[in-house]
């Protein structure tokens, strides 16, 4: 008869398997811990460049942006995260009227970070950054005006 199946065999086999488990956790007990201490390591921590935490509009030193108010991003967004308000401005030199951006609103609270807006933008006016500390107390604070 198989020793493993006898009464004594079962007891011994169980004890062996249990001790193996205990041994493994004991080794873990003494190995250095893997925890990253988040708020303490804020300065040194590495977040992937590609991480998408929030949409932003790159502004130059005068606060100008590259947006041409074409509305492609707002149209391609699956759930209406982006709304664009435009106005018509007449160029003084040429006299032609031109559509310019008045307000670019982005609702961080319902963005799904699918990157379609960034992909579709013809001027690379918008991009995602990796600043993830965005929790707020008020829902309305999540609706952000991106242009200045």
């Amino acid at each position: 008869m198989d020793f493993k199946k006898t009464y004594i065999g079962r007891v011994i086999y169980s004890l062996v398997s249990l001790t193996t488990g205990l041994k493994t956790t004991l080794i873990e007990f003494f190995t250095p811990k893997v925890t990253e201490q988040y708020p303490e390591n804020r300065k040194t921590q590495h977040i992937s460049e590609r991480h998408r935490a929030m949409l932003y509009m790159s502004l130059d030193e005068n606060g100008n942006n590259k947006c041409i108010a074409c509305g492609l991003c707002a149209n391609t967004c699956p759930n209406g995260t982006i709304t664009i308000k435009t106005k018509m401005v007449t160029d003084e030199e040429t006299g032609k009227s031109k559509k310019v951006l008045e307000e670019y609103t982005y609702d961080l609270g319902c963005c799904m970070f699918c990157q379609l807006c960034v992909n579709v933008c013809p001027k690379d006016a918008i991009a995602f950054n990796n600043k993830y500390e965005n929790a707020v107390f008020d829902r309305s604070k999540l609706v952000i005006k991106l242009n200045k």
Partner: protein
Amino acid sequence: MKKPAIKSIPYEEFKDNETLESLIAELNKERTNVLVSKLDDLINWGRSNSLWSLTFATSCCGIEFMAVGAARYDFARFGFEVTRNSPRQADLIMVAGTITHKMAPVLKRLYDQMAEPKYVVAVGGCAISGGPFKGSYHVLNGVDKIIPVDVYIPGCPPRPEAMLYGMMQLQRKVKVENFFGDKNRKHSRKEMQDSPIIVTNVPDSLNEKKNQQ
């Protein structure tokens, strides 16, 4: 004005200090007693450092919530690791994931079952606004429509650090609250009684609310 302090992050670097300050101003209007306010500070210290959350997850964000609990991010460092499965023992509910029409009454009921003081954190796009599924026929667009939300953590799903950040925001909010005085309770008893949850699958004799109707 008292400024709630959190280790390792200066007050100024936190987002949305305006809302917090207006909350403090509102709460401090009626408070004069120094002794009471010291006691309040002590109680708030206890409360804010012992936020036990209900294990509640419906979808993707729930997995990130588990990741926060695991070794790398380890929310035990903050004392949040005692996640309770029974709403009676939990202090906060992290609504992690989409809430659908069918789930909405369940969520409300869980919230009602929790003991005061209780807090709600809306995690991720779905819980904040319906997120990716905003246009769906079966999705609740934001849990703040049925329960009061204290902190919103945007992301889809938010990364674990963002969740920890959100929890610290909640700590800040807890730290400015008053234990003494009626501002404490989020809902009056009256409101609780009027809450629209009606239990339908018990005998009518036991169902007080139904009998009242």
